[in-house]
């Protein structure tokens, strides 16, 4: 699977308060309208130099950036699942970082919202926000389209198929680990993997 699009570049230790500030934690991710609103606030807590582009354009609800490129310890801080959900709800597909905080990584896999992919070396200096990149999950590479620079990534291993299925529960059902949900809880087509089901 490949993900192609512009990248949004961040530094080290981007914590969950920057990804989704606590004032928006009154929103419940399993309520579709609130799921979408969480997306509109993705990275709203990031202090920015004036003139720097925001992750979600002012007044917008989704992001033009498919891939986040970051340094060490991405997603540190709180266990709020709202964090990977906000990034996924905004339309991001993957975070490529030097390392991840444990709970954030696990929440990415459990929700299927985002691919959290680790790099083998520091790459934040090789990209600028807006650069087009190709993330190839099978080959475990991130390629800068203009410069042709290829960054090697650590394989996702068993986490990859879980995210592709749409998270822990979807994967467990798909592979027969758990039974299908009872009919009364089913809702209309929940859409693609990253969807916010009800």
């Amino acid at each position: 699977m490949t993900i192609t699009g512009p990248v949004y570049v961040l530094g080290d230790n981007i914590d969950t308060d920057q990804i989704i500030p606590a004032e928006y934690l009154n929103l419940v991710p399993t309520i579709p309208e609130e799921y979408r609103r969480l997306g509109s606030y993705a990275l709203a807590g990031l202090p920015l130099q004036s003139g720097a582009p925001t992750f979600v354009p002012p007044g917008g609800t989704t992001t033009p950036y498919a891939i986040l490129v970051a340094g060490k310890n991405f997603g540190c801080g709180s266990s709020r699942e709202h964090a990977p959900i906000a990034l996924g709800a905004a339309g991001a597909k993957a975070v490529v970082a030097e390392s991840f905080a444990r709970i954030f990584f696990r929440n990415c896999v459990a929700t299927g919202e985002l691919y959290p992919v680790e790099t083998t070396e520091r790459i934040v200096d090789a990209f600028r926000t807006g650069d087009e990149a190709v993330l190839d999950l099978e080959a475990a590479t991130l390629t800068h389209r203009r410069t042709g620079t290829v960054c090697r990534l650590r394989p996702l291993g068993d986490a990859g198929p879980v995210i592709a299925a749409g998270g822990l529960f979807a994967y467990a059902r798909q592979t027969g680990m758990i039974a299908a949900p009872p009919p009364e809880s089913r809702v209309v087509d929940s859409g693609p993997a990253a969807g916010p089901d009800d």
Partner: protein
Amino acid sequence: MSAPMTMTEKILARAAGKVAVEPGDNVWVRADVLMTHDVCGPGTIGIFKREFGRQARVWDPDKVVLIPDHYIFTRDEKAHRNVDILRDFAGEQAIPHLYDVGTPRYRGVCHIALAEEGHTRPGEVLFGTDSHTCTAGAFNQFATGIGNTDAAFVLGTGKLLLKVPPTMRFVFDGEVPAYILAKDLVLHMIGDIGVDGATYRAIEFAGEAVERLTMEERMTLANMVIEAGGKNGIIACDETTRAYLRTRTRKRFEPVANDPGARFLAERRYDAGALEPTVAKPHSPDKRALARELGDVRLTRAYIGSCTGGKITDFINAARVLQGRRVAVDTFLVPATTEISRGLRSETVDGRPLLEIFQDAGCQISPDASCAACLGGPRDTFGRINGPEVCISTTNRNFPGRMGAKEGQVYLASPYTVAASAVTGRITDPREFLP
């Protein structure tokens, strides 16, 4: 004969029904307690119903603990709706442990309420939808924060797949000087290993200095292992632990101790007597400095509260400094729980109730126990930073915007250092104020 195990490994082996585990093993672990609150509970319940069905029952109502604490004293309508969702769920599932807002059962900050209500039992496994769930490691419990999806899985099955972490051991030898508190120990340690220094690892606190700490102070240590990326913190069970729990729970528990020869990924030793009052500068808990080096930093406010810095001992320590003095900057005090709130009236320093000392000092004291401004919260939250404030705080995080506005700057420090700094209006070493 299996290899010797650490405390964390022994708890996980027991909870997995195995004779032995070792770091790196992926094991299915049985939960003894699942805690959730108003911020993550509604989403967890939403996933539970979606995945297990509208009529599904939780695996064991007696093992589920619901503690609304984050956004309680606000006009925000969604915040109230979220507490309603917890209330409805408790009713529908006959969950006995709901510490409901507006009732005598209301407690406040979940990590302290869990201890006060006897849910932090040695040798057990606690999962919570909050990263500071690790606080309960002070009680020799394996306790870790999880997301909504994992919590929904636990609600339905009582189990979770975990990777057994290796343990880093931090030994504090000697006696803690009178001007040093647990917050100084843990900020010192985080400064050494960094905010990702313990990612995927357990952190054990040990040594004579830790053995002499109260349970409240030990909770401050365990609370902040997540600030180094740790999966859980752990401290041996001793008479201090048992004495705290004696009045809090009647349930039997089985503590664990390290096996002789247990292996640690790393061991660091500190001379507790050599530590100095320590501060974490904006915007990261590992930006360590000594209080005495920061005398030039002018403050606009001070804050004492939260799961790590709003316990009764934290207020007693602050009162030792504030007794007979006036604060020079806005100083906000938020008791973590209702029990602590009552303690402000009943506990004394030099024969005077804490509340009186704080009122005379000019502090603003929240009548309500909750997480309040530790994590910002809705705009009308007590003590929230709504502009370019420079705040010194007993809380646990100082990332950009953590206490509200992104323009704010937060320095983390012990209750002694925060109180001393509130008096002078600049960051101050509390030795200037302590006998």
